[in-house]
């Protein structure tokens, strides 16, 4: 039996078509995925992301612990600043991607829903003596789009929100991060369940459109953002997953897990994860084969882009692959071109 977030009934009431995602009954759409996608690009939409895993880590060893388990370096984080990074295994493979916030007392880490058990076990296994790890079930709402912050202010008694991108602010029991997974401005709000249920209703009343996992996927793909388990996994390092920039090599004496294994790999990765646009009609999908001048590759994520009205995706191909390539769709080779993601940011098409 799949888990339900506290907003399950609210999704059903809003017409959500509920599907099992990583053991959670989540709305895939509330009617039209494309309308939800467009609302986020042009106005404001909201996603229930309460299935994601919020972990609070504090105590004297918390910072050293995070410097060990995350390939990016939390040392330089200011209070309430957020950092995107990856947790690696000893071979340099990606255990998960995550966001970490430095809070006045300790840190908050948000890991994926699909990796919850694995990451909680991993953190426990790597834990140091003087620290505490607490899994904190809350409601987490992503409110995204050019009008997201205006509508959030209209829906609540929050004063003006002046949070810089990739920073957060606390308001009572709420933590509001100016982060997201859509390529648009917006926030992710973490708050206690009762308040979260009320916030959902207020946002609905303020005209924020509920958006499901379907729109979340097309938005993140247009924004060129990876999905764990699909575009990257334990079998891939950050250097073949387009997130090499999240590995902090300085200072040289920070012995994060995976460092040793990546020492040489980072200088000459064999593959690259990059964007692809299908020239012909059709739709790119996960696992389709790619043919390039430097050898075979694979589509890791593919979809139809509502903004560009053509099919786009992410592919893992040989590092030396040239831009012109083709994709095997049901046995016929279709012309495609490699492009650097993102495809769309802040409502504008960047790749063509």
């Amino acid at each position, binding site marked *: 039996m799949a888990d339900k977030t506290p907003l399950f009934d609210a999704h059903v009431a809003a017409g959500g078509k509920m599907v099992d995602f990583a053991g959670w009954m989540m709305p*895939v*759409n509330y009617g*039209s*995925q*494309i309308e939800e996608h467009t609302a986020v690009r042009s106005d404001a939409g909201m996603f229930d992301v309460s299935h994601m895993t919020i972990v609070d880590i504090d105590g004297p060893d918390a910072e050293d612990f995070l410097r060990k388990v995350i390939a990016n370096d939390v040392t330089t984080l200011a209070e309430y600043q957020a950092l995107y990074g990856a947790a690696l295994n000893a071979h340099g493979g990606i255990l998960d991607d995550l966001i970490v916030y430095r809070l006045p007392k300790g840190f908050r880490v948000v890991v994926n829903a699909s990796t919850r058990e694995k990451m909680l076990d991993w953190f426990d296994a790597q834990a140091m003596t003087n620290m505490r790890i607490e899994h904190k079930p809350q409601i987490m709402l992503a409110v995204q789009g050019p009008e997201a912050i205006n509508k959030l202010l209209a829906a609540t008694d929050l004063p003006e929100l002046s949070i810089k991108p990739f920073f957060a602010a606390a308001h009572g029991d709420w933590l509001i991060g100016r982060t997201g997974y859509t390529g648009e401005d917006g926030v992710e709000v973490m708050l206690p369940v009762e308040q979260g249920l009320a916030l959902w209703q207020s946002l609905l009343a303020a005209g924020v459109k509920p958006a499901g996992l*379907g729109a979340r996927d*097309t938005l993140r793909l247009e924004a060129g953002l990876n999905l764990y388990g699909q575009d990257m996994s334990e079998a891939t390092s950050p250097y073949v997953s387009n997130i090499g920039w999240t590995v902090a090599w300085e200072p040289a004496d920070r012995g994060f897990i995976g460092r040793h294994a990546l020492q040489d790999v980072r200088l000459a990765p064999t593959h690259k994860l990059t964007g692809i646009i299908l020239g012909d*009609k*059709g*739709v790119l*999908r996960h696992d389709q084969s790619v043919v390039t001048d430097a050898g075979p590759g694979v589509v890791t994520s593919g*979809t*139809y882009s*509502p903004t560009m009205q053509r*099919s786009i995706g992410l592919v893992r191909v040989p590092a030396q692959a040239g831009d012109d390539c083709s994709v095997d769709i*049901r046995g016929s080779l279709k012309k495609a071109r490699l492009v650097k993601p993102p495809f769309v940011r802040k409502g504008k098409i960047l790749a063509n």
Partner: protein
Amino acid sequence: MSDIPAELKYAATHEWAKLEEDGTVTVGISDHAQSALGDVVYIEAPEIGLTVGAQEEAGVVESVKAASDIYAPVGGTICAVNDALTDAPETVNQDPYGDGWFFKLTPTDAADLDDLLDAEAYAEVCADEE
């Protein structure tokens, strides 16, 4: 509850079939199917002149979410495809039993339509999936 017109015949794979006065059979996907697929963005139609058996693949419909095969409800030869869907695939969502039709075929034996589900039996198939 989805719309299941009583005058049509259905395959358990969610295609509908309608015997026209000229003896051809028009084929599309049901309201239940378009709703389950979500926004349709691409149709791969069969070639005109292609001969297919009953339950054989005769095209693909792709929504934003997934690709799904279309099967011929009865055997025959494809005699027309709905070209309008190339530029307006969303018609399948808007009007699955009308302008959203996929193709027409000349049936090998029109009596094969009798083997398909009627609206009542198809409604049970849909109910079982929900």
